[in-house]
Protein backbone atom coordinates (compact mmCIF):
# COMPACT_ATOMS: atom_id res chain seq x y z
CA UNK A 1 0.00 0.00 0.00
CA UNK A 2 1.44 3.38 -0.99
CA UNK A 3 0.85 6.14 1.55
CA UNK A 4 -0.74 9.41 0.56
CA UNK A 5 1.79 11.55 -1.23
CA UNK A 6 1.88 15.23 -0.29
CA UNK A 7 3.97 18.27 -0.98
CA UNK A 8 5.62 17.73 2.37
CA UNK A 9 6.98 14.37 1.22
CA UNK A 10 8.90 16.17 -1.47
CA UNK A 11 10.21 18.66 1.06
CA UNK A 12 11.50 15.71 3.09
CA UNK A 13 12.82 13.92 0.03
CA UNK A 14 10.87 10.85 1.03
CA UNK A 15 8.69 10.51 -2.03
CA UNK A 16 10.84 7.60 -2.99
CA UNK A 17 9.46 6.31 -6.22
CA UNK A 18 8.74 9.67 -7.74
CA UNK A 19 11.96 11.32 -6.75
CA UNK A 20 14.04 8.20 -7.11
CA UNK A 21 16.41 9.57 -4.50
CA UNK A 22 15.85 7.09 -1.72
CA UNK A 23 14.15 3.75 -1.31
CA UNK A 24 11.57 4.03 1.43
CA UNK A 25 9.11 1.41 0.36
CA UNK A 26 9.55 -2.26 -0.50
CA UNK A 27 9.16 -3.19 -4.13
CA UNK A 28 7.51 -6.30 -5.47
CA UNK A 29 9.99 -6.56 -8.34
CA UNK A 30 12.68 -9.10 -7.61
CA UNK A 31 14.58 -8.72 -10.87
CA UNK A 32 16.50 -5.71 -12.07
CA UNK A 33 15.48 -3.84 -15.20
CA UNK A 34 17.69 -2.63 -18.00
CA UNK A 35 17.05 0.61 -19.85
CA UNK A 36 19.27 1.91 -22.63
CA UNK A 37 19.73 5.61 -23.28
CA UNK A 38 21.36 6.25 -26.64
CA UNK A 39 22.18 9.72 -27.94
CA UNK A 40 23.78 11.10 -31.09
CA UNK A 41 24.46 14.77 -31.66
CA UNK A 42 23.74 14.29 -35.36
CA UNK A 43 20.26 12.88 -34.82
CA UNK A 44 18.93 16.31 -35.73
CA UNK A 45 20.51 18.80 -38.09
CA UNK A 46 20.89 22.53 -37.57
CA UNK A 47 17.28 23.06 -38.67
CA UNK A 48 16.04 20.41 -36.23
CA UNK A 49 15.24 18.00 -39.07
CA UNK A 50 15.56 14.34 -38.10
CA UNK A 51 18.36 12.30 -39.65
CA UNK A 52 16.89 8.91 -40.51
CA UNK A 53 20.22 7.14 -40.95
CA UNK A 54 21.50 8.30 -37.58
CA UNK A 55 18.25 7.38 -35.87
CA UNK A 56 18.42 3.90 -37.40
CA UNK A 57 21.92 3.46 -36.00
CA UNK A 58 20.79 4.72 -32.59
CA UNK A 59 17.96 2.20 -32.50
CA UNK A 60 20.29 -0.57 -33.60
CA UNK A 61 22.85 0.29 -30.93
CA UNK A 62 20.16 0.44 -28.27
CA UNK A 63 18.58 -2.94 -28.98
CA UNK A 64 21.97 -4.64 -29.33
CA UNK A 65 22.93 -3.34 -25.90
CA UNK A 66 19.56 -4.16 -24.41
CA UNK A 67 19.56 -7.79 -25.58
CA UNK A 68 23.36 -8.23 -25.64
CA UNK A 69 23.35 -9.27 -29.30
CA UNK A 70 25.92 -8.51 -31.97
CA UNK A 71 23.53 -7.42 -34.69
CA UNK A 72 20.30 -5.44 -34.60
CA UNK A 73 18.45 -8.17 -36.48
CA UNK A 74 19.48 -10.74 -33.89
CA UNK A 75 18.27 -8.35 -31.23
CA UNK A 76 14.92 -7.98 -32.97
CA UNK A 77 14.69 -11.77 -33.31
CA UNK A 78 14.58 -11.84 -29.52
CA UNK A 79 11.27 -10.00 -29.82
CA UNK A 80 9.63 -11.08 -33.06
CA UNK A 81 9.88 -13.94 -35.52
CA UNK A 82 9.37 -14.08 -39.26
CA UNK A 83 5.93 -15.68 -39.17
CA UNK A 84 4.44 -13.14 -36.78
CA UNK A 85 2.04 -10.23 -37.13
CA UNK A 86 3.52 -7.07 -35.63
CA UNK A 87 1.91 -3.83 -34.53
CA UNK A 88 3.97 -0.71 -33.99
CA UNK A 89 1.98 1.48 -31.63
CA UNK A 90 3.00 5.03 -32.39
CA UNK A 91 1.71 8.45 -31.38
CA UNK A 92 0.29 10.98 -33.82
CA UNK A 93 -0.35 13.94 -31.49
CA UNK A 94 0.12 16.69 -34.03
CA UNK A 95 2.19 19.01 -31.82
CA UNK A 96 4.82 16.35 -31.08
CA UNK A 97 4.29 13.10 -32.98
CA UNK A 98 6.62 10.12 -33.11
CA UNK A 99 9.21 11.05 -35.75
CA UNK A 100 8.45 9.12 -38.97
CA UNK A 101 12.17 8.37 -39.23
CA UNK A 102 11.95 6.41 -35.98
CA UNK A 103 8.85 4.53 -37.11
CA UNK A 104 10.67 3.66 -40.33
CA UNK A 105 13.74 2.45 -38.42
CA UNK A 106 11.65 0.10 -36.29
CA UNK A 107 9.70 -1.22 -39.25
CA UNK A 108 12.89 -1.80 -41.22
CA UNK A 109 14.28 -4.12 -38.56
CA UNK A 110 10.98 -5.98 -38.27
CA UNK A 111 11.12 -6.49 -42.03
CA UNK A 112 14.73 -7.60 -41.74
CA UNK A 113 13.69 -10.32 -39.33
CA UNK A 114 11.50 -11.65 -42.16
CA UNK A 115 8.06 -10.41 -41.23
CA UNK A 116 6.15 -9.65 -44.42
CA UNK A 117 5.11 -6.08 -45.18
CA UNK A 118 1.44 -7.00 -45.08
CA UNK A 119 1.72 -8.22 -41.50
CA UNK A 120 3.13 -5.00 -40.08
CA UNK A 121 1.06 -1.96 -39.13
CA UNK A 122 1.96 1.41 -37.66
CA UNK A 123 -1.05 2.97 -35.97
CA UNK A 124 -2.21 5.05 -33.05
CA UNK A 125 -5.82 6.15 -32.77
CA UNK A 126 -7.42 3.27 -34.64
CA UNK A 127 -5.47 0.40 -33.11
CA UNK A 128 -8.63 -1.12 -31.66
CA UNK A 129 -10.11 -1.48 -35.12
CA UNK A 130 -6.92 -2.29 -36.98
CA UNK A 131 -6.89 -5.99 -38.01
CA UNK A 132 -3.10 -6.16 -37.75
CA UNK A 133 -3.23 -5.02 -34.13
CA UNK A 134 -6.24 -7.22 -33.41
CA UNK A 135 -4.22 -10.21 -34.55
CA UNK A 136 -0.80 -9.03 -33.46
CA UNK A 137 1.59 -11.54 -31.95
CA UNK A 138 3.96 -8.74 -30.97
CA UNK A 139 3.56 -5.05 -30.26
CA UNK A 140 6.35 -2.48 -30.22
CA UNK A 141 5.38 0.63 -28.27
CA UNK A 142 6.93 3.93 -29.36
CA UNK A 143 6.18 7.58 -28.67
CA UNK A 144 7.83 10.91 -27.77
CA UNK A 145 8.29 11.91 -24.14
CA UNK A 146 6.40 14.92 -22.83
CA UNK A 147 4.73 16.28 -19.75
CA UNK A 148 0.99 15.91 -19.35
CA UNK A 149 -1.54 18.03 -17.47
CA UNK A 150 -3.18 15.09 -15.72
CA UNK A 151 -0.63 12.32 -15.45
CA UNK A 152 2.46 14.49 -15.17
CA UNK A 153 4.33 12.34 -17.68
CA UNK A 154 3.19 11.07 -21.06
CA UNK A 155 5.40 8.06 -21.48
CA UNK A 156 5.16 4.54 -22.76
CA UNK A 157 2.50 3.48 -20.25
CA UNK A 158 0.19 6.25 -21.31
CA UNK A 159 0.77 5.43 -24.98
CA UNK A 160 -1.26 2.26 -24.48
CA UNK A 161 -4.44 4.17 -23.64
CA UNK A 162 -5.71 3.91 -27.22
CA UNK A 163 -6.15 0.18 -26.70
CA UNK A 164 -8.82 0.95 -24.10
CA UNK A 165 -12.49 1.37 -24.97
CA UNK A 166 -12.50 4.54 -22.87
CA UNK A 167 -9.69 7.02 -22.34
CA UNK A 168 -11.44 9.10 -19.72
CA UNK A 169 -11.90 6.20 -17.34
CA UNK A 170 -8.12 6.19 -16.81
CA UNK A 171 -8.01 9.87 -15.87
CA UNK A 172 -9.21 9.96 -12.24
CA UNK A 173 -6.71 10.75 -9.49
CA UNK A 174 -4.00 11.95 -11.87
CA UNK A 175 -4.27 8.83 -14.04
CA UNK A 176 -3.09 6.84 -11.04
CA UNK A 177 -3.55 3.38 -12.51
CA UNK A 178 -2.30 3.87 -16.05
CA UNK A 179 0.05 0.95 -15.51
CA UNK A 180 -2.87 -1.46 -15.64
CA UNK A 181 -3.18 -0.71 -19.35
CA UNK A 182 -0.55 -3.41 -19.89
CA UNK A 183 -3.12 -5.94 -18.68
CA UNK A 184 -5.67 -5.09 -21.36
CA UNK A 185 -6.37 -8.19 -23.46
CA UNK A 186 -5.46 -6.20 -26.58
CA UNK A 187 -1.83 -5.95 -25.43
CA UNK A 188 -1.31 -8.41 -22.59
CA UNK A 189 1.52 -10.81 -23.36
CA UNK A 190 2.30 -9.10 -26.65
CA UNK A 191 4.34 -6.06 -25.63
CA UNK A 192 7.92 -6.70 -26.72
CA UNK A 193 9.68 -3.35 -26.59
CA UNK A 194 9.09 0.18 -25.34
CA UNK A 195 10.82 3.09 -27.03
CA UNK A 196 10.59 6.66 -25.80
CA UNK A 197 11.75 9.19 -28.30
CA UNK A 198 13.74 11.75 -26.35
CA UNK A 199 15.01 13.26 -29.57
CA UNK A 200 12.96 16.40 -28.83
CA UNK A 201 11.20 15.88 -25.50
CA UNK A 202 8.88 18.45 -23.94
CA UNK A 203 9.59 19.22 -20.28
CA UNK A 204 6.78 21.64 -19.48
CA UNK A 205 3.42 22.41 -21.02
CA UNK A 206 1.24 25.45 -21.34
CA UNK A 207 -1.76 26.67 -23.24
CA UNK A 208 -4.89 24.83 -24.33
CA UNK A 209 -3.03 21.86 -25.72
CA UNK A 210 -0.30 21.77 -23.09
CA UNK A 211 2.32 22.43 -25.72
CA UNK A 212 4.90 25.12 -26.22
CA UNK A 213 7.95 25.02 -28.46
CA UNK A 214 9.70 26.98 -25.70
CA UNK A 215 9.77 23.81 -23.60
CA UNK A 216 10.89 21.36 -26.27
CA UNK A 217 14.62 20.74 -26.43
CA UNK A 218 16.92 18.84 -28.76
CA UNK A 219 18.14 16.10 -26.43
CA UNK A 220 18.78 13.78 -29.40
CA UNK A 221 18.19 10.51 -27.61
CA UNK A 222 16.14 7.34 -27.37
CA UNK A 223 15.18 5.45 -24.22
CA UNK A 224 14.67 1.76 -24.88
CA UNK A 225 13.65 -1.12 -22.63
CA UNK A 226 11.36 -4.06 -22.09
CA UNK A 227 10.12 -2.91 -18.66
CA UNK A 228 7.62 -0.15 -19.39
CA UNK A 229 7.69 1.07 -15.79
CA UNK A 230 11.47 1.36 -15.80
CA UNK A 231 11.50 3.21 -19.12
CA UNK A 232 8.98 5.74 -17.81
CA UNK A 233 10.82 6.03 -14.48
CA UNK A 234 14.05 6.95 -16.25
CA UNK A 235 12.11 9.38 -18.41
CA UNK A 236 10.76 11.06 -15.29
CA UNK A 237 14.32 11.50 -14.02
CA UNK A 238 15.22 13.19 -17.28
CA UNK A 239 12.23 15.53 -17.17
CA UNK A 240 12.95 16.44 -13.55
CA UNK A 241 16.60 17.13 -14.33
CA UNK A 242 15.68 19.42 -17.20
CA UNK A 243 12.99 21.17 -15.18
CA UNK A 244 15.43 21.73 -12.33
CA UNK A 245 17.96 23.17 -14.76
CA UNK A 246 15.55 25.56 -16.44
CA UNK A 247 12.61 26.10 -14.10
CA UNK A 248 14.36 25.65 -10.75
CA UNK A 249 14.26 22.98 -8.09
CA UNK A 250 10.88 24.11 -6.79
CA UNK A 251 9.33 23.16 -10.11
CA UNK A 252 11.36 20.01 -10.71
CA UNK A 253 8.38 17.76 -10.54
CA UNK A 254 5.73 17.78 -13.24
CA UNK A 255 2.27 17.52 -11.69
CA UNK A 256 1.90 14.35 -9.63
CA UNK A 257 3.18 11.54 -11.88
CA UNK A 258 2.04 8.96 -9.34
CA UNK A 259 1.15 6.32 -11.93
CA UNK A 260 4.79 5.32 -12.35
CA UNK A 261 5.29 4.55 -8.68
CA UNK A 262 1.91 2.81 -8.41
CA UNK A 263 2.65 0.62 -11.42
CA UNK A 264 5.52 -0.78 -9.38
CA UNK A 265 4.50 -0.60 -5.73
CA UNK A 266 0.80 -1.31 -6.08
CA UNK A 267 0.50 -3.33 -9.27
CA UNK A 268 3.91 -5.01 -9.42
CA UNK A 269 4.33 -4.35 -13.13
CA UNK A 270 7.97 -3.27 -13.20
CA UNK A 271 10.67 -1.26 -11.50
CA UNK A 272 10.18 2.41 -10.66
CA UNK A 273 13.13 2.84 -8.30
CA UNK A 274 16.33 3.90 -10.01
CA UNK A 275 18.16 1.68 -7.54
CA UNK A 276 16.68 -1.31 -9.35
CA UNK A 277 17.30 -0.07 -12.87
CA UNK A 278 20.51 -0.55 -14.82
CA UNK A 279 20.73 2.49 -17.05
CA UNK A 280 23.12 1.91 -19.95
CA UNK A 281 24.27 5.12 -21.59
CA UNK A 282 25.54 5.02 -25.16
CA UNK A 283 26.86 7.70 -27.49
CA UNK A 284 26.86 11.45 -27.03
CA UNK A 285 27.32 12.48 -23.37
CA UNK A 286 27.12 16.27 -23.50
CA UNK A 287 24.31 17.71 -21.35
CA UNK A 288 23.09 14.19 -20.67
CA UNK A 289 21.48 15.33 -17.37
CA UNK A 290 20.96 11.82 -15.95
Amino acid at each position, binding site marked *: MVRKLTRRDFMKGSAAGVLGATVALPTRQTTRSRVVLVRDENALDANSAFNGEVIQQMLDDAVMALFEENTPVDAFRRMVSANQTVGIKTNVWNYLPTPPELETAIKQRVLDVGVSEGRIAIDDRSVRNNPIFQNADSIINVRPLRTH*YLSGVSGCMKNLIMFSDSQSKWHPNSCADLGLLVNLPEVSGRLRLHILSVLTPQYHGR*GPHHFSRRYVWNYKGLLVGTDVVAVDAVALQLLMAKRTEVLGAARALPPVPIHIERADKVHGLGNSDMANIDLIKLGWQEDILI
Partner: protein
Amino acid sequence: MIALLLLALNIGVRDVNVCGLSVPTEFGEWRAAEEESSYDRATLYDYMNGGAEVYLSFDYQRVCVRRFVDSDDNEIVLDVYDMGSSAEAFGVFSVSIEDPEVDIGQGSEFGAGLLKFWKGKYFVSVVNQGIDESADQMLLEIGRAVDEAIESTGPEPEMLQLLPPEGLNRRQSSYFHSNVILSNRFFIAAENLLQLSDETNCVFGEYGEMGSGGSVLIVEYPDAVKAVEAHSSFIRGYTPETDGSSPVQTENGNWTYSRITDRYVSIVLEAPTEERASALLSSIRFN
Protein backbone atom coordinates in the same frame (compact mmCIF):
# COMPACT_ATOMS: atom_id res chain seq x y z
CA MET B 1 -4.16 50.73 -54.81
CA ILE B 2 -7.63 49.38 -55.57
CA ALA B 3 -7.03 46.52 -53.19
CA LEU B 4 -6.03 48.95 -50.46
CA LEU B 5 -9.16 51.00 -51.13
CA LEU B 6 -11.31 47.90 -50.96
CA LEU B 7 -9.63 46.90 -47.74
CA ALA B 8 -10.21 50.34 -46.28
CA LEU B 9 -13.88 50.12 -47.20
CA ASN B 10 -14.04 46.52 -45.98
CA ILE B 11 -15.33 45.51 -49.38
CA GLY B 12 -14.43 42.20 -50.89
CA VAL B 13 -12.91 40.84 -47.71
CA ARG B 14 -15.03 37.86 -46.73
CA ASP B 15 -15.46 36.84 -43.14
CA VAL B 16 -15.70 33.42 -41.60
CA ASN B 17 -17.83 32.41 -38.68
CA VAL B 18 -16.09 31.19 -35.53
CA CYS B 19 -18.51 30.34 -32.73
CA GLY B 20 -20.86 32.99 -34.09
CA LEU B 21 -18.10 35.60 -34.27
CA SER B 22 -17.27 37.14 -37.62
CA VAL B 23 -13.54 36.94 -38.36
CA PRO B 24 -11.74 37.83 -41.62
CA THR B 25 -10.91 35.00 -44.00
CA GLU B 26 -7.43 36.29 -44.64
CA PHE B 27 -4.65 37.74 -42.54
CA GLY B 28 -1.76 38.71 -44.81
CA GLU B 29 -0.75 35.51 -46.58
CA TRP B 30 -2.66 33.35 -44.10
CA ARG B 31 -6.06 32.07 -45.25
CA ALA B 32 -8.80 30.22 -43.43
CA ALA B 33 -8.18 26.62 -44.47
CA GLU B 34 -11.39 24.74 -43.97
CA GLU B 35 -14.80 24.66 -42.42
CA GLU B 36 -15.00 25.40 -38.74
CA SER B 37 -14.98 22.39 -36.45
CA SER B 38 -16.49 22.48 -32.98
CA TYR B 39 -16.53 20.23 -29.95
CA ASP B 40 -18.98 20.24 -27.08
CA ARG B 41 -18.63 18.67 -23.64
CA ALA B 42 -19.30 15.21 -25.03
CA THR B 43 -16.81 15.41 -27.89
CA LEU B 44 -13.97 17.53 -26.47
CA TYR B 45 -11.82 14.44 -25.94
CA ASP B 46 -11.78 14.03 -29.71
CA TYR B 47 -9.91 17.32 -29.88
CA MET B 48 -7.53 17.36 -26.96
CA ASN B 49 -7.51 14.11 -24.98
CA GLY B 50 -6.24 14.68 -21.40
CA GLY B 51 -6.27 18.45 -21.73
CA ALA B 52 -10.04 18.22 -21.97
CA GLU B 53 -10.25 17.73 -18.21
CA VAL B 54 -9.07 21.30 -17.70
CA TYR B 55 -12.01 22.73 -19.63
CA LEU B 56 -14.56 20.22 -18.41
CA SER B 57 -13.73 21.22 -14.85
CA PHE B 58 -15.18 24.63 -15.76
CA ASP B 59 -18.60 25.41 -17.25
CA TYR B 60 -17.24 24.76 -20.72
CA GLN B 61 -19.88 24.82 -23.46
CA ARG B 62 -17.99 24.31 -26.73
CA VAL B 63 -14.85 25.22 -28.64
CA CYS B 64 -14.81 26.34 -32.25
CA VAL B 65 -11.61 25.67 -34.16
CA ARG B 66 -10.50 27.53 -37.26
CA ARG B 67 -7.18 26.85 -38.95
CA PHE B 68 -5.27 29.36 -41.06
CA VAL B 69 -2.57 28.20 -43.49
CA ASP B 70 0.09 29.93 -45.54
CA SER B 71 1.47 28.94 -48.92
CA ASP B 72 3.86 26.46 -47.28
CA ASP B 73 1.01 24.78 -45.40
CA ASN B 74 2.17 26.12 -42.07
CA GLU B 75 -0.72 26.39 -39.64
CA ILE B 76 -2.06 28.87 -37.15
CA VAL B 77 -4.89 27.46 -35.07
CA LEU B 78 -7.58 29.71 -33.63
CA ASP B 79 -9.60 28.20 -30.77
CA VAL B 80 -12.61 30.12 -29.43
CA TYR B 81 -13.98 28.60 -26.23
CA ASP B 82 -17.48 29.46 -25.05
CA MET B 83 -17.07 29.08 -21.28
CA GLY B 84 -20.65 29.94 -20.38
CA SER B 85 -19.81 33.05 -18.32
CA SER B 86 -17.08 35.64 -17.95
CA ALA B 87 -16.10 34.21 -14.55
CA GLU B 88 -15.43 30.83 -16.12
CA ALA B 89 -13.59 32.38 -19.07
CA PHE B 90 -11.37 34.28 -16.64
CA GLY B 91 -10.88 31.07 -14.69
CA VAL B 92 -9.54 28.95 -17.53
CA PHE B 93 -7.33 31.84 -18.61
CA SER B 94 -5.99 32.32 -15.10
CA VAL B 95 -4.75 28.81 -14.35
CA SER B 96 -1.42 29.34 -16.11
CA ILE B 97 0.08 32.71 -17.03
CA GLU B 98 3.74 33.03 -17.99
CA ASP B 99 4.06 35.72 -20.62
CA PRO B 100 3.46 39.48 -20.93
CA GLU B 101 0.08 41.17 -21.34
CA VAL B 102 -0.59 42.49 -24.86
CA ASP B 103 -3.78 44.51 -24.37
CA ILE B 104 -6.11 42.15 -26.17
CA GLY B 105 -9.45 41.28 -24.60
CA GLN B 106 -9.89 41.73 -20.86
CA GLY B 107 -6.69 39.90 -20.05
CA SER B 108 -4.03 38.34 -22.24
CA GLU B 109 -0.60 36.81 -22.53
CA PHE B 110 1.61 36.36 -25.56
CA GLY B 111 4.86 34.50 -26.09
CA ALA B 112 6.59 31.58 -27.81
CA GLY B 113 3.93 31.07 -30.45
CA LEU B 114 0.90 31.30 -28.17
CA LEU B 115 -1.61 34.10 -27.66
CA LYS B 116 -4.25 33.63 -24.97
CA PHE B 117 -6.92 36.05 -23.88
CA TRP B 118 -10.39 36.20 -22.35
CA LYS B 119 -13.28 38.55 -23.00
CA GLY B 120 -16.85 38.20 -21.87
CA LYS B 121 -17.76 34.52 -21.83
CA TYR B 122 -15.02 33.64 -24.32
CA PHE B 123 -11.54 32.27 -23.78
CA VAL B 124 -9.45 32.44 -26.95
CA SER B 125 -6.14 30.90 -27.95
CA VAL B 126 -4.18 31.43 -31.14
CA VAL B 127 -1.27 29.03 -31.67
CA ASN B 128 1.52 29.05 -34.23
CA GLN B 129 1.94 25.35 -34.92
CA GLY B 130 5.20 25.74 -36.79
CA ILE B 131 8.66 26.68 -35.70
CA ASP B 132 8.83 29.84 -37.83
CA GLU B 133 8.76 32.60 -35.25
CA SER B 134 8.07 35.22 -37.90
CA ALA B 135 4.48 33.98 -37.95
CA ASP B 136 4.02 34.91 -34.30
CA GLN B 137 3.10 38.51 -35.07
CA MET B 138 0.17 37.23 -37.12
CA LEU B 139 -1.24 35.71 -33.95
CA LEU B 140 -1.71 39.22 -32.62
CA GLU B 141 -3.57 40.34 -35.75
CA ILE B 142 -5.90 37.38 -35.55
CA GLY B 143 -6.37 37.91 -31.83
CA ARG B 144 -7.24 41.57 -32.26
CA ALA B 145 -9.81 40.68 -34.93
CA VAL B 146 -11.49 38.19 -32.61
CA ASP B 147 -11.32 40.72 -29.77
CA GLU B 148 -13.19 43.22 -31.96
CA ALA B 149 -15.78 40.63 -32.91
CA ILE B 150 -16.64 39.91 -29.27
CA GLU B 151 -19.02 42.72 -28.42
CA SER B 152 -19.57 42.36 -24.71
CA THR B 153 -17.27 42.18 -21.74
CA GLY B 154 -18.03 40.58 -18.37
CA PRO B 155 -16.92 40.68 -14.77
CA GLU B 156 -14.17 38.66 -13.15
CA PRO B 157 -15.25 36.20 -10.44
CA GLU B 158 -16.40 38.13 -7.37
CA MET B 159 -14.56 35.64 -5.20
CA LEU B 160 -11.23 37.16 -6.26
CA GLN B 161 -12.06 40.02 -3.91
CA LEU B 162 -11.54 37.66 -0.99
CA LEU B 163 -7.79 37.55 -1.62
CA PRO B 164 -6.10 40.10 0.65
CA PRO B 165 -4.90 42.86 -1.69
CA GLU B 166 -1.70 43.91 0.06
CA GLY B 167 1.28 42.36 -1.70
CA LEU B 168 -0.91 40.26 -3.98
CA ASN B 169 0.51 39.42 -7.41
CA ARG B 170 -2.79 40.02 -9.18
CA ARG B 171 -1.66 38.68 -12.52
CA GLN B 172 -0.99 35.28 -10.97
CA SER B 173 -4.35 35.07 -9.19
CA SER B 174 -6.37 32.05 -10.27
CA TYR B 175 -10.00 30.97 -10.10
CA PHE B 176 -11.01 27.34 -10.58
CA HIS B 177 -13.04 24.45 -9.21
CA SER B 178 -11.21 21.14 -9.36
CA ASN B 179 -8.25 19.35 -7.84
CA VAL B 180 -6.77 18.84 -11.31
CA ILE B 181 -6.21 22.56 -11.60
CA LEU B 182 -5.00 22.93 -8.01
CA SER B 183 -2.41 20.20 -8.50
CA ASN B 184 -1.00 22.03 -11.49
CA ARG B 185 -1.25 25.45 -9.87
CA PHE B 186 0.11 24.41 -6.48
CA PHE B 187 0.59 20.75 -5.69
CA ILE B 188 -0.65 19.89 -2.19
CA ALA B 189 -1.29 16.16 -2.35
CA ALA B 190 -1.79 13.34 -4.80
CA GLU B 191 -5.12 12.71 -3.14
CA ASN B 192 -7.96 15.22 -3.32
CA LEU B 193 -7.59 16.19 0.36
CA LEU B 194 -9.75 19.30 0.02
CA GLN B 195 -12.57 17.36 -1.66
CA LEU B 196 -12.72 19.78 -4.58
CA SER B 197 -15.38 19.17 -7.20
CA ASP B 198 -17.54 21.02 -9.70
CA GLU B 199 -19.52 22.23 -6.66
CA THR B 200 -16.54 24.10 -5.18
CA ASN B 201 -15.13 27.49 -6.14
CA CYS B 202 -11.49 28.28 -5.45
CA VAL B 203 -9.23 31.30 -5.63
CA PHE B 204 -5.47 31.10 -5.30
CA GLY B 205 -3.12 34.04 -4.92
CA GLU B 206 0.61 34.51 -4.53
CA TYR B 207 2.27 37.19 -2.43
CA GLY B 208 5.67 38.71 -2.98
CA GLU B 209 8.20 37.77 -5.63
CA MET B 210 7.41 34.24 -6.89
CA GLY B 211 5.22 33.64 -3.86
CA SER B 212 8.03 34.44 -1.41
CA GLY B 213 5.50 36.14 0.86
CA GLY B 214 3.30 33.05 0.96
CA SER B 215 0.22 31.94 -0.95
CA VAL B 216 -3.47 31.90 -0.14
CA LEU B 217 -6.03 29.32 -1.19
CA ILE B 218 -9.72 29.95 -0.41
CA VAL B 219 -12.32 27.29 -1.18
CA GLU B 220 -16.05 27.89 -1.15
CA TYR B 221 -18.15 24.76 -0.48
CA PRO B 222 -21.88 24.31 -1.11
CA ASP B 223 -22.53 24.37 2.63
CA ALA B 224 -20.79 24.53 5.99
CA VAL B 225 -21.03 20.80 6.59
CA LYS B 226 -19.00 20.01 3.48
CA ALA B 227 -16.51 22.71 4.41
CA VAL B 228 -15.97 21.12 7.82
CA GLU B 229 -15.47 17.68 6.27
CA ALA B 230 -12.96 19.01 3.76
CA HIS B 231 -11.05 21.02 6.36
CA SER B 232 -10.78 17.95 8.57
CA SER B 233 -9.52 15.95 5.63
CA PHE B 234 -6.89 18.59 4.90
CA ILE B 235 -5.74 18.71 8.52
CA ARG B 236 -5.46 14.90 8.71
CA GLY B 237 -3.63 14.62 5.41
CA TYR B 238 -1.39 17.67 5.38
CA THR B 239 -0.93 19.14 8.84
CA PRO B 240 -1.64 16.29 11.24
CA GLU B 241 0.52 17.96 13.93
CA THR B 242 -2.30 20.40 14.66
CA ASP B 243 -6.03 20.56 15.14
CA GLY B 244 -6.03 23.58 12.89
CA SER B 245 -5.85 26.14 15.66
CA SER B 246 -2.23 27.14 15.09
CA PRO B 247 0.27 27.44 12.22
CA VAL B 248 2.42 24.44 11.30
CA GLN B 249 6.02 24.67 10.18
CA THR B 250 6.65 22.37 7.26
CA GLU B 251 9.87 20.62 6.34
CA ASN B 252 11.22 23.46 4.22
CA GLY B 253 10.93 25.90 7.12
CA ASN B 254 7.84 27.69 5.82
CA TRP B 255 4.46 27.86 7.54
CA THR B 256 0.98 26.57 6.77
CA TYR B 257 -2.14 27.80 8.54
CA SER B 258 -5.80 27.12 7.82
CA ARG B 259 -9.20 27.95 9.20
CA ILE B 260 -12.86 27.48 8.44
CA THR B 261 -15.38 30.30 8.16
CA ASP B 262 -18.95 29.17 7.49
CA ARG B 263 -18.78 27.44 4.08
CA TYR B 264 -15.24 28.67 3.31
CA VAL B 265 -11.90 27.05 4.01
CA SER B 266 -8.92 29.40 3.89
CA ILE B 267 -5.35 28.16 3.80
CA VAL B 268 -2.09 30.06 3.93
CA LEU B 269 0.73 28.07 2.33
CA GLU B 270 4.47 28.56 2.28
CA ALA B 271 4.45 31.68 4.46
CA PRO B 272 8.06 32.59 5.35
CA THR B 273 7.34 33.13 9.07
CA GLU B 274 4.77 32.09 11.62
CA GLU B 275 3.79 35.72 12.05
CA ARG B 276 3.30 36.16 8.33
CA ALA B 277 1.08 33.06 8.20
CA SER B 278 -1.11 34.39 10.99
CA ALA B 279 -1.27 37.90 9.57
CA LEU B 280 -2.14 36.71 6.08
CA LEU B 281 -4.87 34.41 7.33
CA SER B 282 -6.30 37.15 9.54
CA SER B 283 -6.44 39.55 6.62
CA ILE B 284 -8.94 37.39 4.71
CA ARG B 285 -12.35 39.05 5.15
CA PHE B 286 -15.70 37.54 4.25
CA ASN B 287 -17.91 40.58 4.73
